[in-house]
């Protein structure tokens, strides 16, 4: 019996050593500084920490095959869904073996918000272990049913019986709710709808008459109703510029943003804590809507190649065509990306505290869990 145990021990020591040997970098004979040698014949996994259900999934699956030709060695890309735990579990799984530089994380603003609030379930450190590569931005637009009598944005404060319906008042919805809070027009908020589809049906039925949608959703279905005069567009969430100020949405250049509308009604630019929180959430949900991350311990040659690939791809005709057809917005790369990504990797603590109190008091939502 004893000899069995000791031979088992010996075996495990040997296999542990062998495995450790495999993990040693530089066992490749090729030049470590040559990206083509690093990537040749490899398959890069893109981990999506949520289900295949549209949105980010479609975007990632469209972009991934294009990336290959902008990376030396032309590795192939494989998109893998790892749903669960509000996108935390998939992120953890990615981080566990992302140091080889052969897997990327394509997260969403849900993940970013959990990261900014420091959810302890993450097994890695967002301030040290990740580097942003690019982000697919998304705008959103608020509108009302014309039956409310609203004809222009300034009519919002005179309208009666405005009702908005959403899913649960969690982090993802907070930026929209905050815009209602800042503008402070009379609005009834109902939660519990199953999906965006359900709120759209309820809007058609008249159960709801005020809504906000992402640019893609608005253009594919609601824009038709705007043309028919059934829907009145009111304002957009906006984007953050290089100086950290909110600017107009390039897809809706004629519509005011939340702070502009505030100024038009109240006569001054907003300057409250609420507005600071709004800017923070706008960076997370507009500019950084669907960010791609690489592990910071990945080989430098790989990190540089990825960053360059996203920049090159963003400028290609093929990608511009995809932007026109489907995405609507250019890829966020370079300085603007680094600025926005700080909101995740180094979030403003005071704003987080204010936001946590706001969500808890107004909606009973604990953002800090």
């Amino acid at each position, binding site marked *: 019996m004893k000899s069995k145990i000791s031979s088992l021990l010996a075996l495990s020591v040997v296999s542990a050593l062998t495995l450790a040997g495999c993990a040693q970098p530089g066992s490749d004979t090729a030049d470590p500084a040559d990206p083509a040698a690093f990537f040749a014949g490899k398959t890069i996994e893109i981990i999506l920490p949520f289900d295949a*259900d549209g949105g980010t*999934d*479609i975007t990632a699956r469209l972009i991934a095959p294009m990336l290959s030709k902008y990376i030396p060695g032309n590795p192939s890309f494989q998109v893998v869904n790892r749903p669960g735990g509000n996108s935390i*579990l998939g992120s953890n799984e990615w981080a566990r073996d992302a140091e080889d530089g052969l897997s990327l994380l394509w997260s969403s603003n849900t993940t970013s918000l959990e990261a900014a609030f420091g959810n302890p379930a993450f097994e890695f450190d967002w301030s040290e272990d990740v580097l942003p590569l690019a982000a697919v931005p998304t705008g959103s637009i608020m509108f009302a049913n014309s039956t409310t009598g609203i004809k222009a944005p300034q009519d919002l404060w005179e309208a009666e019986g405005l009702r908005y319906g959403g899913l*649960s*008042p969690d982090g993802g919805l907070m930026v929209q709710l905050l815009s209602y809070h800042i503008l402070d027009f009379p609005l009834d908020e109902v939660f519990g709808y*199953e999906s965006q589809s359900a709120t*759209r049906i309820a809007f058609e039925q008249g159960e709801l008459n005020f809504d906000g949608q992402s640019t893609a959703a608005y253009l594919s279905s609601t824009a038709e109703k705007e043309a028919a005069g059934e829907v009145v567009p009111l304002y957009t969430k906006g984007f953050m510029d290089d100086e950290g100020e909110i600017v107009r949405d390039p897809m809706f250049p004629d519509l005011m943003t939340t702070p502009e509308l505030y100024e038009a009604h109240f006569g001054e630019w907003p300057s409250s804590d609420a507005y600071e929180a709004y800017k923070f959430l706008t960076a997370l949900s507009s500019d950084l809507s669907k960010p791609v991350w690489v592990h910071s311990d990945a080989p430098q040659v790989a990190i540089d190649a990825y960053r360059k690939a996203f920049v090159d791809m963003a400028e290609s005709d093929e990608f511009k065509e995809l932007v026109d057809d489907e995405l609507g917005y250019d890829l966020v790369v370079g300085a603007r990306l680094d600025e926005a990504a700080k909101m995740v990797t180094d979030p403003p603590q005071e704003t987080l505290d204010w936001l946590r109190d706001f969500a808890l008091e107004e909606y009973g939502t604990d953002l800090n869990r």
Partner: protein
Amino acid sequence: MIDAALEALTFIFTFERLAWMTLGVLIGLFLGVVPGIGGAVGMSLLIPVVYGMDPYSGIALMIGMIAVMQTGDTFTAVLIGVPGSAGGQATIMDGYPMARRGEAGRALGAAFLASMLGGILGAIFLFAIIPLARPIILSFASPELFMMAIIGLSLVALLSKGAPLKGALAGVLGMLISTVGLAPSTADLRFTFDSPYLYSGVGLILVALGVFAIPELVELMVENKRIARDGAKVTAGIGQGMRDTIRNWRLVIQGSAIGSFLGMIPGIAGPVINWLCYGAASSTVRKDNRFGQGDVRGVIGPEAGNNATEGGHLVPVLMFGIPAGATSAILLGGLALMGVNAGPSMVEDENLPITLSIVWTLAIANVLGTALCILLATPISKIAFIPARRAAPFLIAVVLLAAFQSTRQWGDLLVVMGLGLIAFVMKQLQWPRVPLLVGFVLGPAAERYFTISTSVYGWDWIFRPGVLMMLTLLVGGIVYSALRKSRRSRLREINQVELGEATVDPDTGRRSIVNLARSARANYSRDRRLDPKLDRRLESDEKRDDLDEPR
């Protein structure tokens, strides 16, 4: 419109598009046969392929896949009692007992023909409803959806087979399990015990696998027999099953009507419709209703329904651009990539050929898919011949893999085993398990639509005409069945007095004793001593086991 329909048909009948459709059908069948992989995964793999395709070819590919996903899953449901997809659970109720009786072929034949007819009727429905869809969909607001959920929950009584209290408790247990995770209308976490795995709740496929597959497999191993106790007819009955379907054409029409109509309404999920079809079939069949024990009519109703549902699902997708689920959300994305923007303009002249080609694809793909399934039925159904000790380990691996597919976290396996244990105990104690699943599916819907209804309409929602109509239907149904039951039990009392029978049903009572004794071998010998009659019965059972055992 007929002219336009014929014109659309000529668009489809090109070699290239038929080839794409065939590919779609093959993918769809594969996704159906392999448990745990839903349509959404298949659709998302097609997205890069359809980008830049011409719309008719892309539609042939995507709709071809969607059309038959509910056909392929019949194999696993009937042959091994494992749900192939979330929408195909009701087929297990009677399909699997039929397979155990050795009538797998008959069950498959009936199911496939019913699927095909359901799919075609669903396509016809889609064609006919196009001008009327808008007002119908818009008449189902939150209060009406709440009532639909309540009607669905009332099925629990129907599906619990003479044990309403146990059924209700199982239903409540299902609802309780459904509350795990983020609450629907607040951002509260419920029963998550600080485990991130539980944030998004327990997946439907895990509940379905745990509740149906695990107890059956354990039992199969305990008995150590083949799935088909009587092997003679396993592959022979396909024709007979198809004749069964034709004979029960009323059930096919009923199932398709329920499936396509309810499928049209966003907010009523596929699995709910599946059980509603089963419940409806069970309550319309009067003559020797043996639903739940291997009645072929229990296969026909839901199978016709679930293929028709796909036709219904497409109505809101095409007319409003509003997806009914993950699969149709990705379909919408795919259509947009090909320049087709779903919405009211789909019925205007310039888009009509596209809409009609979708209808045609749905019908043709159903015929194609069924033909393939019938060809495959004979070889595949031989799985029921394999002795349990060889088949069961493989099947357990399949079930666990299917469970692991849902999020690929270890928690999936723990959840499916935990639920399997609960379900195993329930089965041994003869508690109905279906209500658990129905409660699980409908619990969140009931909660969410109740919250919305009261916060939007106060209590006025009760007086909406649609709600009153459904309420009348519900109360009427309950009163009617209660009256019928009390008449029947009075009859039974008279019989019992005359025959001097014990109140326990002799057949089921015996079965439960046998099962319990088998699973708890420790009590076995004591029971023997205590009840000499049981001893003799067990012995005769064991002898039969020995005969069945292939050596």
